[in-house]
């Protein structure tokens, strides 16, 4: 049995471990475009701030690949898949055969599509190399602009602020984090960031990047000129799947997979930011490009590639972050779109906000700002899809009192049970 894995981050790494949890012997080959062992992509923020070194970001021990019998083709890229031949062509022209293939190639930042974007100083924020280049340039820069109000852009802006630069976030939509949280939380978080010195301007977008070889500033779509030496493009990501485009593999937003993370080809699987799975809350097919999803999917795909039969229950849009000491968490559906009932609790002065979203008596979403410790209880309820309408008010108070929570978990007395990532209740061994 020869397993081939494309991509060496959350999904690929967990794919290896999933395979090895079942098949200790089969051959594994890993094609890794980036020239490092798997690293914590989300922590390039900390690398940029300077609190973490490259080695601090490595996700496994040095001998991980060797111990797991994985042959790593470092710095190589898959360029084409031939499903009929069961082969993948890589960028040095070689064709590698496989019995089972995992596509875990992740995603790349979308570009701005404005004039001057190619100038030095304009960055995406996705890789260790991006962070390294930004850090280098930040040494001699005074001001950075962030285009886009999503989490990645804000994280980059936060890191640069921590490094002492002036930071301005420029968002076309009327508010930041518009795809992560609802209006109230968005307003609260924006106010907090502004108080900490990050400037946020809405309803604006860049029209042109100014400068010669290096960027010196930008012209906004209202005609205004802003000086800056760094621009971070935080416009979201798109999946890396060009190598699969003519292969006959089903592609919609991403590579479409079923509940086993399998594509329309029996022996080809996909996981992580490149994969389009069922959303646990909406039931619709979507890409939840998240670390948690990538790890769970990678693991599940690996198990199934090795002959296991693990069902993936679907991904859930869920984000957690902390900026300047203010934590917030959002999960599931956060808006009332289709008959959802909203319960909320505010303490604006203290930067505390809590919102729960119910649909047909079930919890389908939650947003917590400031006080977030009970978040996991909400997550469990969303995943288990229990009816909780009679508990709505108590849930909103931040905690379900244990007795009722226990009933929700259907657990026996004494918490002898626990819930698995896919929402099953199991006995503690």
């Amino acid at each position, binding site marked *: 049995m020869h397993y081939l894995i494309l991509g060496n981050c959350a999904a690929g790494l967990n794919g290896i471990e999933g395979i090895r949890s079942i098949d200790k012997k089969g051959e594994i080959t890993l094609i890794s475009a980036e020239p490092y062992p798997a690293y*914590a992509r*989300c*922590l390039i923020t*900390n690398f940029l701030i300077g609190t973490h070194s490259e080695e*601090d970001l*490595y*996700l*496994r021990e040095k001998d991980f690949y060797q111990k797991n019998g994985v042959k790593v083709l470092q710095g190589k890229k898959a360029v084409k898949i031939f499903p009929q031949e069961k082969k993948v062509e890589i960028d040095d022209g070689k064709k590698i055969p496989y019995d089972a293939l995992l596509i875990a190639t992740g995603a790349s930042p979308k570009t701005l599509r404005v004039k001057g974007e190619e100038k030095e100083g304009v960055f995406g924020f996705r890789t260790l190399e991006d962070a390294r280049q930004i850090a280098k340039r930040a040494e001699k820069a005074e001001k950075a602009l962030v285009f886009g109000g999503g989490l990645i852009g804000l994280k980059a802006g936060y890191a640069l602020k921590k490094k002492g630069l002036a930071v301005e976030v420029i968002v076309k939509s009327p508010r930041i984090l518009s795809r992560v949280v609802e209006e109230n939380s968005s307003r609260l978080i924006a106010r907090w960031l502004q108080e900490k010195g990050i400037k946020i301007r809405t309803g604006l977008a860049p029209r042109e990047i100014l400068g010669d070889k290096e960027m010196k500033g930008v012209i906004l779509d209202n005609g205004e000129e802003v000086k800056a030496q760094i621009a971070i493009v935080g416009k979201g990501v798109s999946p890396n799947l060009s190598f699969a485009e003519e292969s006959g593999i089903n592609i919609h937003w991403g590579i479409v997979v079923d509940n086993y993370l399998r594509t329309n080809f029996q022996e080809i699987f996909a996981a992580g930011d490149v994969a389009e799975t069922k959303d646990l809350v909406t039931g619709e097919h979507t890409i939840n490009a998240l*670390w*948690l999803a990538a*790890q*769970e999917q990678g*693991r599940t795909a690996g198990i199934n590639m090795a002959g296991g039969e693990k069902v993936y229950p679907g991904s859930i849009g*869920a984000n*957690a*972050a*902390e900026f300047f*000491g203010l*934590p917030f*968490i959002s*999960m599931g559906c956060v808006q009332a779109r289709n008959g959802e009932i909203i319960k909320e609790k505010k303490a604006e002065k203290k930067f505390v906000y809590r919102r729960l979203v119910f649909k047909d008596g079930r919890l389908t979403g939650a947003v917590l700002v400031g006080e*977030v*410790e*009970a*978040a*996991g*209880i909400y*997550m*469990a309820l969303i995943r288990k899809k229990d009816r909780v309408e009679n508990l709505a008010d108590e849930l909103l108070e931040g*905690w379900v*009192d*244990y*007795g009722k929570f226990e009933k929700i*978990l259907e657990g026996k*007395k*004494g*918490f*002898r049970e*626990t*819930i*698995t*990532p896919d929402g099953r209740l*199991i*006995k*503690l*061994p």
Partner: protein
Amino acid sequence: MKRIFVDEERCLGCRSCEIACAIKHSSSHKLEKAIQEQPLPISRIRVRKDEENAIPLQCRHCPEPCCVYACIAGGIRKDEKTGLVVFEEKKCVRCYSCVMVCPFAAIKLGEEEQPAVKCDLCQEEEIPPCVRACPTGALFFGQAEEFQELMEKRKKRGKKNALLNIG
């Protein structure tokens, strides 16, 4: 594996377990000094209480832990040998992803630079201090079957006298 189990009928909500845990996880290991430490030591066990009921909550060391997948720093793992869910505290970047998924709200974050913490089952102790500190026998440390047996024994003895028949 040995775990902490709870007979919640016996929990009075006295929080002795919380204090014992915080002292155990302080740098001085002494109450009078621990309360002056900066930052204050954090208890890994949390007593939830309302008018009628109380229960101590702590990490269950789940067989399939949600937190392991969530940690963006690769700082949480399930130790196959001991069964423990291990937090490598120095890796924590306070992203709250583990808090987001723990069904028992068993993870705590302290002030500013402090890492997320949770029950580590006090490996170097024969019996975890929280269990030792419990005055009513509501906390039990051992195998699941042992706890099962104990509970059956207690059931036979009857609920009414639960608190009088400690042990």
